[in-house]
């Protein structure tokens, strides 16, 4: 059987973040490496946050997706987590940023010093206005902050730059 890393990557674009189902793990920048070894395909992922409770689910889904797309036996697809490389929001792709916005989450703003503070301007992902205020540094998950748009009067979340 032909085992092509491009096909693996294409399959992984169908694996979504369980908490942001519009954005794939590829577009979040979580796929570090795909290696084809004689008896298996090894997918190396990096976690976004160390305490993220979704890592196990993501690994299972990635394994299933690749198994199905390439029609391989399950034991020929291995998923490993690596901490050699630190995940940062710079790894989110342009497509990822667009999908985040479509999902109602403002993509991580470019802050220079990589820290989201209340004085960093953030555009509302719903109406585009910049008249927004930080309500809470921590939103529904560790990687997001809670904001409020004074223009369209909606609360929304921002992915924190790290």
């Amino acid at each position: 059987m032909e085992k092509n890393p491009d096909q693996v990557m294409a399959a992984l674009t169908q694996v979504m973040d369980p908490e942001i189902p519009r954005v794939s793990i590829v577009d979040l920048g979580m796929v570090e490496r795909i290696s084809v070894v004689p008896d298996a395909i090894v997918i190396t992922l990096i976690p976004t946050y160390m305490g993220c409770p979704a890592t196990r689910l993501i690994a299972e889904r990635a394994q299933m997706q690749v198994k199905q797309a390439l029609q391989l036996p399950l034991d020929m697809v291995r998923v490993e987590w690596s901490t050699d490389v630190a995940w940062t929001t710079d790894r989110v792709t342009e497509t990822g940023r667009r999908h985040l916005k479509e999902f109602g989450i403002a993509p991580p703003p470019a802050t220079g010093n990589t820290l989201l503070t209340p004085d960093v301007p953030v555009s509302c992902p719903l109406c585009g206005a910049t008249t927004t205020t930080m309500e809470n540094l921590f939103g529904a998950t560790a990687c997001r902050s809670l904001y409020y748009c004074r223009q369209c009067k909606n609360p929304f979340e921002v992915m924190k730059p790290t």
Partner: protein
Amino acid sequence: MAAQPIDRDVKPEWRDALVDLLFQLADDDLLVAFRGSEWLGLAPHVEEDVALSSLAQDEMGHAAMYFGLLESLGLGSRDDLAHLRPVAERRNAIMVELKNGPGTYLEQPHYDWAFTIARAFCYDVMESLRLERLKSSSYVPLRDVARKISGEEKYHLLHHQIWIRRMALDPDAKTRLQAAFHRVAQDAGDLGSTGAHTAILEESGLLPDASGLTRAWQDQVQEFLSLQGLSWTPVRETSTGRLGKHTKDLEDALDTLSEVYRSDPLARW
């Protein structure tokens, strides 16, 4: 002078120091996570409740990473290390094990918010200084973990700074906060201590400038507090918790934290 990087094999004469350091890091974060989780449903408002859960979740994730490094050194499974070690083997600082306030989670939890914020801020400042040094640790696996954790910890510090600024604007809150910082200081002597192997930690490059932590930490805490019109009671370094001497609060915390795990250590979760 940068120390020679250590990929896997640690010199035998440095191994004890490395293991002890990893236990300090893991135990600190484990207790911070546990005390944070005890606020669940009790925080001053619902958004803070959500924020605290995220903070506690981050800290538990960091503890798991450090315990994982110990596991890879052959010390046993990380769950066993977190749950089954007796109090005398714990290496966390005293400050992080103390109860959030009177009562217990299930009965009359009259927890002290000012104490929680004061303690969390003091811990975050220490953690940021320690991680900054660990980012150039000679032990490569620890260096990688420190780099990863740093990005998350910046937000913890920022979050608690925002709370302090806000509380310092209200006379009543400010009085309580000041009292809380005095209380935290009473038990913070061992927070910047690195225990029995400090000289080796420096010489090996495992934790550069280990002996400078307490001073750097107090300077930074004092500077931030004085900007808010608050004062810091200087502490003298001790090594209490880093040598395994703890309070009854730690015993109680571990009884609760590990109750289920110890009921059947062989169960698969």
